[in-house]
């Protein structure tokens, strides 16, 4: 395994069964993924596509039916790997009877941080997520946005190398969303690796370096966001200082080659368009990986 690879899944499969062991649903089908150090990797997919299942398998919260997930080269069930991981769950599952300071102090103690480091980090993180005024209030009194913030703070308490963010912008207001995105980019700039899954396509488009699109437990697309979004049968030429003659000359060249000039700017599709197209094609042809988009 390359040293650059932080998360590796090989034929990762998860079948949920009922009490009697009968197959209920195959949530994830033979997923092969590599997440490399220092990148922001996005998992995309509609509800029930297997995004959260993938994250839970990587964290060891679920056991794979087949295949394996390795994190930092260690099996997902290994406890030691968690020392280098931060996890923000979908709903910020935190103890509502604790206040912000107690929450962060509790999680810090699970990393066996010395008291002085703990205090400093709790102080810094509360400031970073903007909860100074509410730090003594029990989490039961928090709004959803505030809960997300304290959830993020607990994910960062150990200064992790790898962050797994499940729907990180859910419940945040537009400013909160912008701050969250900036923070994710900032963390990437610090050299951290981030795996996130989201329904918000614009979020993924804004921050992710690479994405994987899942549908009904299958990997439908995988690649760099910029390359996936590129419209390949069109050409965008950008130039400055072209004279009218030069432009006319370019038009003639295009015409001579039998091409049609649409405009000087090549359009860029939105991630949303790509996403919807992939899902529709997948529904028309189940079980087949959608090609020809990238």
């Amino acid at each position, binding site marked *: 395994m390359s040293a650059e690879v932080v998360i590796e899944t090989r034929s990762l499969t998860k079948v*949920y069964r009922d009490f009697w062991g009968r197959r209920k649903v195959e949530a994830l089908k033979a997923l092969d993924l590599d997440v490399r150090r220092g990148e922001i990797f996005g998992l995309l997919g509609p509800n029930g596509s297997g995004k959260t299942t993938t994250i*839970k398998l990587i*964290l*060891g*919260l*679920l*056991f794979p039916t087949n295949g394996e997930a390795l994190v930092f080269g260690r099996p997902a*069930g*290994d*406890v*030691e790997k*968690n*020392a280098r*991981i931060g*996890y923000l*769950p979908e*709903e910020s*599952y*935190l*103890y509502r*009877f*604790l206040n912000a300071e*107690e929450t962060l102090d*509790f*999680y810090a*103690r*699970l*990393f*066996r941080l010395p008291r002085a480091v703990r205090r400093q980090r709790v102080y810094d993180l509360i400031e970073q997520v903007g909860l100074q005024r509410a730090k003594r209030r029990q989490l039961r009194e928090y709004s959803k946005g505030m809960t997300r913030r304290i*959830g993020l703070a*607990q994910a960062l308490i*150990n200064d992790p190398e790898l962050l797994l963010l499940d729907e990180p912008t859910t419940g945040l207001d537009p400013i909160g969303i912008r701050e969250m995105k900036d923070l994710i980019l900032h963390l990437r700039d610090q050299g951290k690796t981030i795996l996130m899954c989201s329904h918000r396509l614009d979020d993924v488009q804004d921050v992710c370096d690479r994405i994987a699109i899942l549908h009904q437990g299958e990997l439908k697309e995988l690649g760099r966001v910029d390359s996936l979004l590129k419209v390949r049968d069109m050409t965008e030429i950008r130039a400055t200082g072209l004279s009218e003659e030069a432009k006319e000359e370019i038009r003639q060249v295009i015409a001579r080659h039998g091409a049609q000039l649409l405009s000087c700017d090549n359009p860029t599709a939105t991630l949303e368009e790509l996403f919807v197209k992939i899902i529709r094609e997948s529904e028309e042809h189940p079980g087949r990986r959608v090609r020809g988009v990238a």
Partner: protein
Amino acid sequence: MVLETFHAVNFAEWIGPAAKVWLIAVVALLVGFALLRWLFAVLRQGPAAGTLSALNFLWAAAADLLLISPRRTLALAGLTIKESMRRRVVIVFAVFLILVAFAGWFLDPGSNQPARLYLSFVLTTTSYLVLLLAVFLSALSLPADIRNHTIHTVVTKPVRPSEIVLGRVLGFAAVGTVLLGLMAAISYVFVLRGLDHKHDFSAAAREQLAVMWRDARRNDSTQGIAVSTDRVQNHRHTVFFDPAQETVDEQGVRRGAIRTDTENGHEHEIQYVVPAEGEVQFVCSPPENHLLARVPIYGKLRFKDRAGKDADKGVNVGDEWTYRSYIQGGSLAAAIWTFENLRDDQFPDGLPVEMTLGVFRTHKGDIEKGVPGSLSVRNPATGDEAHVRTFASREFQTDLQVIPLEFQTGDGRTINLFRDMVADGKLEVWLRCVAPQQYFGAGQADLYLRARDASFALNFVKGFAGIWLQMVMITGFGVLFSTFLSGPIAILATGGALLGGLFSDFLYQLSQHKVFGGGPIEAMIRLVTQQNVVTELPPTAQTTVAKMLDKAAEQWMWLIWHMLPDFRVLSFSDHVAYGFDISWGLLAMAVCQTLAYVGPAFVLGYVFLKSRELAQ
């Protein structure tokens, strides 16, 4: 007092065989579990991958159990304490306070044994409240964490499942400890205050005494008189005033200090000053000797039948409780206790023999008077027997007879107890019933030597330590069940373990077909068809099926009886209430038994949690 478990406990002798049985059970459990795990893995993944997976699991389990971080465990314990506070454990404390506050209305300090009543009340109340709390707290916590998904943010930290289980057990134990400590302190004050009272003398008694002291001033040889105190808490004491025992100073002021007789299990000391002129001042002490921690030395009991021949047991007088065996009065029948390892330096003031006898009357006789009995000592080596005294039994009341170090027998012999009767530290005490046609009932623990008294306060604490151990045991079970069952089911399972442990004797009797009315199915048939428990059911196919099912159920009950802890071993309430010292050996035994269950419960809980998909 009688408790069948009141046998002498020799911890050093007990621990070896007990540890051996425990080790065998634990190793069998672990090996069985490892084999099951391997079998499942092989079935799911094939022989090679399955074996590898099972070995990996064992390796990880060893690491998880050996590399527990105290800091993380304490952090988790701290969280558990906070969670318990959030769950309002304080309410249990409030309920206790309310019960204690109103207990004064229904606990009668004027009853026969008020100290026993008060102590039983506080110990029982505390134990039920704390055990119920332990069941609910420990069984609900982890399932709630799993249901709310809060466990996700914990297990994705470098936390071992073993630390989660241990943190829970420690946290709940800490909450229970604080709660029990507070309850114990309040209980102690409640008992002392509830029993506290003083006596005074009526005007008539004072007048009688005044006459006595007036005579005493005139004549040194005035005899003492016995007067009764006033009635407080439904009893009065008789006090014998003897002018000969008083001190008289130059001004003619008489001073004395006397003890009352024992009533309702206590006595008082009365100090008084008789001035030459004016009112006599009496100062009555609070009740004394009612809160005891007697340290008994038990002997080994054997019997002689009416013809004077050795017998395993005495006569069965039809009592369902077979603990006591009876000896016939006016015959050669005797109950004989052999005591060992007696030294004269242990008993500088004579040999205190304390007994609580059962009396079975075949005719009413003089009901106001006790049935007469005789007490003798016998040298086991020479067979030389010396009659000590005759006494009137006080049925089911504890009676203390001190055998002097030197005494004269009826035939004029002077006996030196240790020189003439004790051989190699051994001494036999013979009990006979003197009244013909009446019987004395005696069990092993009914007669003992009261070597000394230990501190009652310490014994009280030990009694609460017993409740604490029960609480820890239930917490262990609760946390174990909560690792693989949902909250309500875990409560049922933990409550079942508690009930099974409290009634383990009944469970055993049931499994051995020794209970009238048959097993559960037969009992159900009797219940529905309204048949009594003694008559045989009609020999129908239905009865045969019911009995077969019961047979199978009995095997299960036998198995469960073996697996469940016997909570009576951890309960010292009767020791405290009846005033017997809880020996350190008994306490050590209880601690070992608790650890013997909580340890494996912790390991099993860990295995279940580790094997569980927490996000499913």
